């Protein structure tokens, strides 16, 4: 496989994963905001600030409102991380490697793009929003289904999965980071109901709200949230799950190409570290430092993968 194609596959999956995460995030915050007088102003502001594109927002929109924020995050082409920009980039990468994809995988991606372009051609209004978001997330699911059901599980598949899990780990890490203070033991004392709704937004945006509630029979506390999102091996968006998948896909590649790779060493180290940390009492972990470290390492992992496999 061409190194450039490996790169296209990796980024096609990354961008699509990122767009899905963004759509889920909007969905979660919307859910939270609708029942609030201030339209969840802080939550929206937080996403926009974290995107590091606040200046674009200020330039393009006259003042803050929920609907402005949503349009910025969904369909603003100057926002490099808006859903439509991400889907377009994913599809562009996919189009460059369409010979490596099955017809079904390519068509699910192409159709997701066509329908997103149609849904987001005009500014969205609030009553269409739930359906628009559902459609976008459904597109990602269809893609994943076609991927598992029709593609050979070979190196093409491995690069796609690597893109997905490196991106997903990054997303979960950043989501936890933005709310780490709510997960500290003191948060429990400060205000249970406020923290509760914060966890809910975070968990919903990682589609983890119902599953954790079910696992904990409704008794959610900051430790269980942190433990679930970071360590739980069953949870498909936990850091541990993502690392495990990265190791497994890199192991496949190392076996196929009969080489040893730095990226595999690093991924294994990260997995081991996580195992050790889990054995510790979660109270003893400096959460902020821990998450920051992992964001940096995961980022490094992405560039080492690119070096190892000539992804250009």
């Amino acid at each position, binding site marked *: *496989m*061409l190194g450039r194609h490996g790169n296209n596959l990796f980024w096609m999956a990354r961008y699509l994963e990122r767009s899905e995460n963004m759509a889920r995030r909007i969905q979660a915050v919307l859910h939270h905001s609708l029942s609030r007088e201030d339209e969840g102003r802080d939550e929206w502001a937080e996403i926009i600030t974290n995107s590091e594109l606040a200046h674009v927002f200020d330039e393009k929109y006259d003042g803050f409102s929920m609907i402005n924020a949503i349009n910025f995050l969904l369909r603003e082409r100057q926002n490099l991380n808006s859903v439509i920009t991400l889907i377009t980039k994913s599809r562009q990468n996919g*189009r*460059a490697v369409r010979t490596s994809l099955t*017809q079904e995988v*390519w068509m699910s991606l192409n159709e997701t793009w066509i329908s997103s372009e149609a849904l987001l051609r005009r500014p969205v209004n609030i009553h269409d929003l739930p359906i628009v978001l559902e459609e976008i997330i459904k597109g990602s699911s269809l893609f994943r289904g076609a991927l598992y059901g029709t593609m050979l599980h070979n190196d093409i598949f491995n690069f796609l999965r690597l893109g997905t899990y490196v991106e997903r780990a990054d997303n979960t890490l950043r989501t936890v980071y933005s709310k780490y203070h709510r997960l500290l033991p003191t948060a429990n004392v400060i205000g249970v109901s406020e923290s509760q709704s914060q966890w809910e937004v975070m968990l919903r945006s990682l589609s983890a709200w119902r599953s954790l509630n079910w696992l904990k029979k409704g008794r959610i506390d900051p430790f269980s949230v942190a433990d679930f999102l970071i360590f739980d091996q069953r949870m498909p968006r936990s850091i541990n799950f993502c690392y495990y998948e990265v190791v497994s896909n890199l192991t496949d590649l190392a076996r196929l*190409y009969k*080489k040893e790779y730095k990226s595999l060493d690093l991924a294994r180290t990260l997995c081991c570290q996580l195992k050790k940390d889990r054995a510790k009492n979660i109270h003893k972990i400096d959460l902020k430092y821990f998450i920051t470290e992992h964001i940096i390492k995961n980022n490094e992992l992405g560039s080492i993968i690119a070096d190892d496999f*000539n992804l*250009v």
Partner: protein
Amino acid sequence: MFDEMLSDQSHQGREPYRKLLSWLENQNLKKLSKKSKMAEEFFRRVGITFNVYGNEDGEERLIPFDLIPRILALDEWQKLEKGIIQRVVAINAFLRDVYNSQEIIRAGIIPEELIYPNPAFLPQMCGFIPPGGVYTHVVGVDIIRTGIDEFFVLEDNARVPSGVSYMMENRSTMLHMFPELFTEHNVRPISNYPKELFNSLISCVKTNIPDPNVVVLTPGIFNSAYYEHSFLADEMGAELVQGTDMEISNGEVMIRTTSGTEKVDVIYRRVDDDFIDPLSFNSKSMLGTPGLFDAYRKGNIVLANAPGAGIADDKAIYSYMPEIIKFYTGETPLLDNIPTWKCSDAESLRYVLENLRELVVKEVHGSGGYGMLIGPAASKRELSSFARKLRSNPSKYVAQPTLALSTVPILTKSGLAPRHVDFRPFVLVSPDTIKVTPGGLTRVALKKGSLIVNSSQGGGTKDTWVLGV
């Protein structure tokens, strides 16, 4: 005006179309239109699109597909096939000659001022014979019809002819939508094209290379024919590469893969000569691979088509094609050229200016239907502004009579309506055989009365059937 379906004195339609006509009588217009929409929807979902240049947001468009097939009887096809093969033999002989001993120039048949200063002539190719002796592995010969027995070659495409993916996709769409038509007609299959392309490409590789590695070279996803590049790579099982994926190492062409580098033996290139190698050609090109041309001259790689093949399909050379055919084959041309006035010639220029209203004027180096004048369809103002352009730079233009292109009906909202068509069959050249795929791309002008069939100008396509016995 000759209509390929209906121009028949018996009023039953022409013979090859009779079964189709009786089938059409039993069809419901609404249902057909619905099928037509379905086909379009399918094309969009699969991404069978082309990019329009000069369009800011890089919009991708569909080439409209008309579901009424264009049908050629076996004897009509055989006549075309013979003429095309004769022409392609001559084109290859001409290229070999013009880049080597240049006998045709010495014989005084083609003036040297048409060759040396011509931008399509690449001096870098002189004294070199490509692997297998083949210059044009793939040729598209554009043919128009004006009557029952009147076929003319409009132009030869010897550089990087495109459109073959539409030939293939149109057929598979028809098979999918109207399987019953194919049980009633004995339509010759075209599905082997990619396999035959592959075989003809590797037939030029040195015999001591066991499993030659073929790649398709594309300028990238923003090229107007990108879909076709990916389609052909896919069908041939070849890697779809860009210039930046390749490097030259010890005179061999290598591609950079996820597990190291890999040697390449054949490049089916879909980029123009200028963009192959910045060291030998356009030094500003970002698309090329430095050193590729040197590797080619060492005989280490097959490039299809050969660089410099464009000198054979140049519009100025076109008018000499009958002489070229006679010179190299000793035969009279089986397919006619369209009479062409070279405006560089003062006498011709005067004639063209006097009769502008009746002529079609084209740029010698133009393509895609851009920058041409169709006299009968032009306004007074357009005529006079074009006349000024002609006078100020006559050698840039050639002129031809406006021919009454044949029509084939298309499906419109109000039923069948005749529209002008042209035809591009595809020819594959190997060292020892030349094959013409029985079919081709029929382009159709969708606007009533229009003679411009180019997709960039709103033309559409049809499936083309060659009937067996």
